[in-house]
């Protein structure tokens, strides 16, 4: 196919990762993290999503798995 699906997936998760990470850093120590057992899940999970997005983009650029 002309469009490699890994590229849009990579972009989506990289963007979502940046959004969560940024929001998490901006709300460090906020009481809203009592919900998530005191863990700032936005920072951690944002980083995971960002890395996942990056890997997808890299795979998409390489062309074949």
């Amino acid at each position, binding site marked *: *196919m*002309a*469009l490699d*699906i890994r590229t*849009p*997936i990579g*972009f*989506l*998760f990289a*963007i*979502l990762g940046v*959004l*969560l990470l940024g*929001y*998490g850093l901006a*709300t460090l120590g*906020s009481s*809203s*993290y009592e*919900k*998530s*057992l005191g*863990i700032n*899940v*936005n920072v951690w*999970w*944002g980083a*995971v*999503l960002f890395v*996942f997005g990056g890997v997808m983009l890299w795979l998409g650029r390489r062309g074949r*798995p």
Partner: protein
Amino acid sequence: MDSIRLLPIDYVILTVYFVFVLGIGWALRRYQKTSEDFFLSGRSIPAWVAGLAFLSANLGAQEVIGMAASGAKYGIATSHFYWVGAIPAMVFVGVFMMPFYYGSRARSVPEYLKLRFDEKTRGFNAISFAAMTVFSSGISMYALASLFEVLLGWDFNFSIWVSGLIVLLYIYLGGLTSAIYNEVLQFFLIVLGFAPLVYLGLRDVGGWSGLTARLGEVATENGYAAGAWSDSWRHLTSPSANPMGVEWFGMVMGLGFVLSFGYWCTDFLVVQRAMAAHSMAAARRTPLIAAVPKMLFPFLVIVPGMIAIALVQTGGGGFQLPANPDGSLNYNMVIPQMLAHYFPPGLLGLGLTALMASFMSGMAGNVTAFNTVWTYDIYQSYIKKDGSDRHYLWVGRMTTIFGILASVGTAYLATRFNNIMDFLQLVFAFVNAPLFATFLLGMFWKRATGHGAFLGLACGTLAAALHHGLTLPSGALVGIKGGWLADTPVKLYPSEMAQNFWTAIWAWTACFLVTIAVSLITRQKKSDEELKGLVYALTPREREEHLPWWKTAEGLGVLVLLLAVVLNVVFW
């Protein structure tokens, strides 16, 4: 219950997702030149993409919400719907059936029936399937709109029309490819959106050992042995020993054989994804690749249910489930309530996006299957036989609009007449139950005839209805639950699930026997030449020797089955 207040960050995340969903449709619009591009992605999809779409098309919200609900109600035994009720059938369709689906160049499952049997068998399957897909898509829409209404206070009409419009746009523009690509995206969103929920939940209840200890309390409080919620097989010796109310034979035969093979091996909704693969080898690998994540899904969707019931019944953290009007717990709220309980703003947006994605993949899967069956099997067969390819491409797009509108209609119908919905669901279950017998005989017994297949299907459907009408789950009222044919039910089942499994077993057996009997007394109208590529004995075996073993369907199939056995043993 409280509704959730979303912050701007949550809306931003949701919006980014919608932009991508529509963007993919937009980017694919110029590749839709022929009807095969639109309905079958031009048979060009790589195996891993088709595999994830195969899984995702089935991963509608009913799956996510329903499996979490069952996890709370029945515990880890719900995993039978995966490790027994899906994996073996997925291996079977990849290894044994795909050569005939893909090799015959049929464009849909009903079309295979036409090539193998005759027009009336195809018509029966095509019409019931088309009706069922519109119905399921409408139910998905209804569920989405009602959930977002209670959860977020969104207007019901708004949710219906917006979700319908988005699915319509991306399918209208990009056809099946767009649906498949979005399903892959949705797959990752669902996994990455719900994984933190499992992590936080498990951490909260004290890890796996903490969870099993709490579930032991849940089980004994409800009058079962301590492991009833945390062992999958040990308590299936008798229906009264487990909360599902089933015993191992009904489970293995009813769910593991009839229902599961009937769904995974004959339902065009999933088979279409494999038919879109770029080669025979890729088509055969599609369900096998899907089987690997499928096997792990219990940890993502069932475990949250188990955590929820453990928290509700043993106390802790103030987690609660809302009650139904009759006082019982509303298990369908497990996932939404867990999201609200554990996810802070930001991650909550991601979780809700994942939930939204699961609703939309369920809808899109049904709509793409519907427009193909409608265009090829109904319109091209009965209404206009000799149109140009461009005409059928146009019909496909129009059918997409019609399919979405019909789904919207169904969704509104569901708000007013819940009984009609239950009734329709029951009728579809009757029609579907015997299907696998027809395909099994069609593919592996060359003597099976068109009359045999048609009468077999009709009798199987009738047998399902009769069995349902003559039996009743204990404690249920006569009516939609069964027992409507006899003053006193011939058999009382310990649970609705047990009744369902046995309805399926009876339907399958009736279809199997009637098809054989009628085939033997009718003439085979198809010559051996016509059946080449459609029946096992008349199809030359394709060798896949140039592929490494882990890329062949057989090698991958054995590996997948071994993994499933390991999981069953570990959680015995």
